[in-house]
């Protein structure tokens, strides 16, 4: 037919500036495609602005008002004054008052408090007698950053605070001794803290990506159409896509923990079986979240973008890079919604503090809830038709 005949000079091939012309053609095409992908376009603006605001306000490397517990074996005026003085330093916030050593240890072990102050029996009397009794300040040094600034300034600040507060005259030195004890990581070695944290961080990244691509890949390759025409239910698709990677995650966790122990000398004080069980739960939670992204995203690029939108806060708000207790309350609530936050507590507690299940009930339950929420969203979001 006559319609598709080349017509004269228009289709003449111009080879001058060929390089620029072809590069331009490619650029123009990319811009058009970028503009069509609305979600990616929105993310170009949303990701930097949101994340900058989020992290700019949330992160604080010299944290204050750290949750603390007091083991009060004597309820005297002096004891109260000392606690008040400690609180006035703005480093400590006493949230628990216990009278039993075991409760005190468990609070530190489970990570509910970062500091514990022990006021011994007969403390006031010993001070009056001039015996210089010891005031024990136990710090959870698994995160050296969180603990160090508070511990470092302890002696000086308490002294000033006490002088203002009540003390009799102007004594040359404190009438008692502050004995700071950096528990679990006495040498304040950061790798002791970082390596268990890395277990969680690496698992988050790899697990998310595995499943985040799983549904979008079926759609993009066209296999979803025949899959949906066959008798399989959304829950079955989800389980089929998650379970194999639990094994993969388990192997990864095993590798990282072994390298941590044998190469970096990180201890594993707690029960290995408990660590394996809770790690599996954490792996499954991340896989479920990745899978949820996959059911929401329209293509693989979006799925990857969503994974990063989730991964970056996990890195910064979970307590991996910056002390969790140092963040403002809203950021802490946000952090509680991230599985990594809970897993970091679990893995540090088991490896470094020898914690057992009763210490970790809350975090384990939180992981299970996050997993179920993600799975529920995934199953309801899964499109059973091509509509």
């Amino acid at each position, binding site marked *: 037919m006559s319609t598709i005949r080349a017509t004269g000079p228009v289709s003449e091939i111009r080879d001058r500036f060929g390089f620029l012309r072809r590069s331009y053609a490619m650029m123009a095409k990319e811009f058009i495609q970028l503009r069509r992908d609305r979600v990616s376009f929105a993310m170009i603006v949303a990701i930097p602005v949101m994340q900058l605001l989020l992290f700019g306000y949330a992160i604080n490397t010299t944290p204050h008002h750290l949750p603390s517990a007091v083991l009060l074996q004597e309820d005297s005026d002096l004891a109260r004054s000392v606690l008040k003085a400690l609180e006035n330093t703005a480093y400590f916030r006493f949230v628990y008052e216990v009278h039993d050593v075991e409760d005190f240890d468990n609070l530190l072990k489970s990570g509910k408090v970062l500091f514990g102050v022990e006021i011994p029996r007969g403390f006031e009397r010993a001070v009056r007698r001039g015996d210089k009794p010891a005031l024990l300040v136990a710090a959870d040094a698994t995160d050296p950053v969180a603990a160090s600034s508070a511990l470092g300034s302890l002696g000086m600040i308490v002294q000033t605070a006490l002088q203002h507060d009540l003390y009799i005259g102007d004594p040359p030195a404190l009438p008692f001794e502050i004995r700071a004890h950096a528990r679990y990581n006495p040498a304040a070695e950061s790798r002791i803290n970082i390596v268990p944290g890395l277990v969680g961080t690496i698992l988050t990244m790899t697990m998310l990506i595995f499943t985040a691509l799983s549904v979008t890949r079926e759609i993009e390759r066209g296999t979803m159409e*025949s899959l949906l025409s066959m008798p399989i239910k959304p829950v079955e698709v989800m389980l089929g896509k998650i379970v194999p990677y639990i094994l993969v995650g388990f192997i990864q966790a095993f590798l990282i923990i072994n390298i941590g122990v044998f190469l970096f000398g990180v201890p594993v004080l707690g029960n290995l079986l408990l660590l394996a069980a809770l790690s599996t739960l954490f792996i499954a939670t991340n896989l479920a979240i990745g899978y949820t992204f996959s059911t929401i995203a329209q293509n693989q690029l979006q799925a990857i973008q969503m994974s990063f939108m989730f991964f970056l806060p996990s890195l910064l708000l979970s307590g991996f890079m910056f002390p969790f207790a140092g963040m403002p309350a809203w950021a802490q609530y946000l952090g509680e919604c991230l599985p990594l936050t809970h897993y970091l507590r679990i893995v540090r507690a088991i490896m470094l503090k020898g914690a057992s299940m009763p210490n970790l009930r809350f975090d384990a339950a939180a992981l299970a809830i996050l997993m179920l929420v993600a799975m529920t969203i995934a199953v309801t979001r899964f499109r059973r*038709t091509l509509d």
Partner: protein
Amino acid sequence: MNADDDIAIDVKGLSKSFGGREVVHDLSMQVKRGSIYGFLGPNGSGKTTTIRILCGLLTPDSGEGTCLGYDILRDAEKIKRQVGYMTQRFSLYQDLSVRENLEFVARLYGLADARGAAQDMIKRLGLSGREGQLAGELSGGWKQRLALGACTLPNPKLLLLDEPTAGVDPKARRDFWNEIHALAAEGLTVLVSTHYMDEAERCHEIAYIAYGHLLARGTVDEVIAKSALTTYTVTGELGGLAAELEHKAGVDMVAPFGTSLHVSGRDAAALEASIAPWREKSGLHWQKSHPSLEDVFIELMNRSRDNFQ
């Protein structure tokens, strides 16, 4: 359940729109059990959408009906168990081998011996020796055979084949159709969409759909007869004739066929009046002939474009 057990597909008034554009409009059709039903129409006419509605992959905006006696709106899961759907684009796993793909399908449908069923199908498809090859590495014809094998593996009662022979060589196409006839002889109902006229003629019944509207249905002979098209075949010195005739009154279609030209019209009297001046021309030989199925379809397509666009 449908009282009439001879009917495999019975749908009425199906409509479906995407983004405000109606792709299927008020479509009704009936397919007899054990028959091969051809589904024809131009690209974008709604064939794929209709097939997807029938197997529960799409929900119609309106309409109702049954597929194998099950309600297409409520019993999609039951329909899926008994329907084999072969997609237009190859949709098995390219990175699984022939055997792994077949075993996957067999397990999804809950076949008792998935491995054995896959092995039997490999033999039946003539793929023995290639069962370990990745599906993505098969040629077009073999991919299509594998896809047919996969959707017949769970012994479905109805096969929905969406342009199964697109891009397949004539030999493979013929083998494919022999296979389909063999399956139909075993009692399987087959709904197959196609562009090829020779394939349409291999169907027991056909339906022609354009712009979402079902325009004609019946056996091939019925469809040709119902078109009431008068066709003349012209041979000889055809240069320029097609262009001259195209817009004459009564001439609905002019189509070149190799060295001859088909001139057709619905109104026989008007057509004959218009072509009269050329009939006497020397060098041209006119003969009144039967319209071919292709003549009928092209005429239907032209007409539907006038009506719906």
